[in-house]
């Protein structure tokens, strides 16, 4: 039996939306107050969904302790309480939540290797009013 398991995490970070390929006026038009020069911050909610067969001996898709340890080390320690714009991951890339989703998904997909477990998708809440989902470019399951 295949099941999907989702775990929710939180981290806080700052960013400024600004593209070097646009003029100052264009940046202000496109990004509005997100373009304010000194940046601003969010409490990001991160939901990680993994899927796989439920192991008959443990009753689990994946041991949560393993997932928590990976996310803590590779994502929360890296991005939590950071200024996203100064990280090398965002050199030449605007740290929108779309791009942050892609970066985090790729870290999970390439680094979280557990037999029979697939990183299905992530969902990020930038605020309670907007959220983003990314499944490595695949269509999302309803």
């Amino acid at each position, binding site marked *: 039996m295949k*099941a999907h*398991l989702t775990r929710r995490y939180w981290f806080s970070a700052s960013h400024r939306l600004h593209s070097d390929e646009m003029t100052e006026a264009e940046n202000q038009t496109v990004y509005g107050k997100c373009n304010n020069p000194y940046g601003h911050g969010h409490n990001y909610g991160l939901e990680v969904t993994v899927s796989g067969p439920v192991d008959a*001996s443990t*009753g689990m*898709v994946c041991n949560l302790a393993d997932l928590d340890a990976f996310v803590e080390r590779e994502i929360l320690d890296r991005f939590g309480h950071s200024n996203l714009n100064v990280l090398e991951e965002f050199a030449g890339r605007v740290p929108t939540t779309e791009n942050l989703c892609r970066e985090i998904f790729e870290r999970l997909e390439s680094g979280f290797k557990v037999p029979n477990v697939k990183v299905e998708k992530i969902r990020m809440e930038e605020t309670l009013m907007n959220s983003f989902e990314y499944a490595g470019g695949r269509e999302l*399951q309803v």
Partner: protein
Amino acid sequence: MVYLTRRTEFSASHYYHNPEFTPEENRRIFGKCNNPHGHGHNYTLEVTVKGEVDRRSGFVVDLKELKEVMNREVIDALDHRHLNKEVPEFKTQIPTSENIAIAIWQRLEPRLRVAQLHRVRLYETPDLFVDFYGEK
């Protein structure tokens, strides 16, 4: 096709233990969930059904009927129970959220007459949930 979700809650206790594992393995794999006297959660259950909207009633499913089936098949059986000791499915399976979601699907699916069951989502805490779509 329209999807409709009904939410309900139940409270239950459980612990994780596989008699085929050694005590050390049980502690290593299940951590504090292996504590022998168990612990509890307020579970939130979301049941999603799908179907075409009936032209005359405007319904995908009669919500009253869905509520009755959920109450009878799930809430009456699981609410304020010790899952390991009082629910037949968990005499032989570990009552993880994965297995509880599958058991809820298997309880509901044969009883839903009008709409088709699409997803069972079970929250163990607000930060942890399992989805089961009936996949093999």
